[in-house]
């Protein structure tokens, strides 16, 4: 188990390095330059700023310096568009993204998993058909349609809810709901598939024949195996929740990390871009690892396989 974790962490480092390399060269290939404003800045002033940020060095030196600075000084460089350390920007906005992402994940699990289990228990009934149709709607209707609809038809009419903004805990509800619906839909489909496969197996028939009551059959015997596909999906879906948050943060004006990424692309701010990308990449690596460990605990066969590798 420990060897497996170390192995995966090393692989995670490789992932981050690949992500860094791709983002670095894409950022360099981006047209335009960082210090363009409405005012005309003289060439000297631009050259001075370039030197200040170390952008005048050779490509190779810049490529190597950034990761070295992260490791030795813990510094993610200074944002060229905001003039503040990227680390501070991330530290300030990440808690908002995390709260939003976790609430969305919580909502997704609370809606998706029960929906999937119920559909699997009543396979081919109208309950199954209805909840799977709802799940399909969740997949096909984009967040940027759901978000504005919630704003106009729910937030504007319910006291306490604000159309947009971020301050009191109640403001989390609508963005998290918008963000979580798609994930809930995927979770419902995966849970249904996983449960159906488990419910068709012999040990379930044996348990049923021995007279185990239906509820206990589901909670004690079927859920453990049936939830595996859903759990494997939660790791990557955390990534999807973060990238989906670009949209939701825009709609509900949440001061999170997603907007910084989009703004960094528009402002050609490569340090902010690299910092946010690497930070997201790090989160994804950790979440994938956590999902794998959880799968290993629930399913002994997986644990065995990974040890053999």
């Amino acid at each position, binding site marked *: 188990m420990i060897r497996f974790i170390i192995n995966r962490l090393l692989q995670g480092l490789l*992932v981050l390095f690949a992500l860094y390399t791709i983002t670095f060269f894409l950022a360099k290939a981006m*047209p335009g330059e960082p210090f363009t404003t409405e005012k005309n800045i003289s060439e000297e002033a631009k050259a001075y700023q370039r030197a200040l940020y170390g952008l005048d060095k050779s490509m190779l030196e810049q490529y190597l310096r950034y990761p070295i600075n992260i490791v030795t000084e813990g510094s993610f460089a200074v944002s060229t568009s905001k003039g503040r350390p990227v680390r501070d920007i991330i530290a300030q906005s990440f808690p908002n993204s995390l709260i939003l992402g976790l609430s969305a994940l919580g909502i997704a699990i609370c809606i998706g998993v029960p929906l999937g289990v119920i559909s699997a228990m009543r396979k081919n009934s109208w309950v199954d058909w209805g909840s799977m149709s709802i799940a399909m*709607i969740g997949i*096909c209707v984009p967040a*940027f349609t759901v978000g504005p609809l919630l704003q106009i038809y729910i937030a504007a009419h319910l006291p306490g809810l604000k159309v947009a903004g971020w301050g009191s805990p109640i403001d989390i509800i609508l963005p998290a709901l918008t963000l979580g619906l798609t994930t809930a839909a995927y979770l419902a489909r995966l849970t249904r598939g996983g449960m159906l496969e488990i419910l068709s197996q012999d040990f379930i028939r044996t348990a049923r024949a021995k007279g185990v009551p239906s509820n206990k059959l589901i909670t004690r015997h079927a859920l453990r195996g049936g939830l595996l596909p859903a759990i494997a999906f939660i790791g990557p879906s955390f990534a999807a929740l*973060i990238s989906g948050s670009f*949209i939701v943060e825009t709609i509900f004006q949440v001061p999170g990390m997603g907007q910084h990424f989009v703004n960094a*692309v528009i402002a050609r701010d490569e340090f902010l871009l690299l910092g946010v990308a690497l930070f997201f*990449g790090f989160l994804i*690596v950790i979440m994938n690892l956590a999902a794998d460990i959880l799968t290993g605990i629930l399913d002994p066969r997986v644990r065995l396989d990974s040890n053999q590798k």
Partner: protein
Amino acid sequence: MPEKQPMTNQITDTEAGTSLWKDAWLRMRKNKIALASIMVFTVTCFFCFVIAWFCKDPNQVNLVNKFSGPGSEHWIGTDALGRDLFSRILYGGQVSILVGLIATAVSVTIGIIYGALAGFFGGKVDAIMMRIVDTLFSIPFLMIVIVLQAVLSEWSRETSAWIVNNLNWDKGFTDRITNVLPLFFALGLLGWLTLARIVRAQVLSLKEREFVEAATSLGLSKLTVLFRHIIPNTLGPTVIYATLTVPGFIMYEATLSYLGLGVESPNSSWGILIKEGANYLETNPQLLIFPGIIFSITLFALNFLGDGLRDALDVRASKD
């Protein structure tokens, strides 16, 4: 296995005689939702690519007649600039559907070739190639697409200017084309990973089969065997996966356009229409609701079609 139809009938060992596709079609015909989906998608395409040519100019601005409700002149009304919403939805659909289809074609081509080579050569080559795929899998897709799109669209602007200057093409036409091209590649270049895995797994098992041995002993070169005999046999799972990829790419295109990083005027897409509609939701909800409904129905149809194909072809490898 009869050798007469080497294209299709060797994936399954079951009923010899009926081809995989014929079999699948027979099962598919019983699936009413999948059939309805095919019809919905065909009708949508027919409207977007045929009927659209007979509609009003989608960029015809008429500020006197903005926000007009549904009527005989403008069937479902006009937008904030007095443009006909119906023809804007149809023309926007052209871009959305084309991006979905062509980006899928790009990613399927890359995925098949990459996965097939990895599976066919096996050993160290396979290990290295699949490790690369594993690594890329953990990279946030949308982020890279956003940056790649920014890079590619500048190149396309330069290309467009060059074509207009040197080849004397019509500027509007060239802009329309070069504006969409980056999206095809930004999405297609990054969406091939899952398919590469599926194809590799198929090729790994297919290359041990007798028909490959037969082809090799007839003196065919390795690559001929791979491209003429093995790859055609992986088409079943590929078709399923590709069908489910199209709605995903349409959604990505809409997301990028929503963020202002996708297609630009004079092009429009469903993502842009939804974005514009959201601004006027309070006073004119139909501007969001009509494009939103068409968009969702199309995605609905494509997803159900993919599910139906999966049930019909019944390939376990691509179950999730």
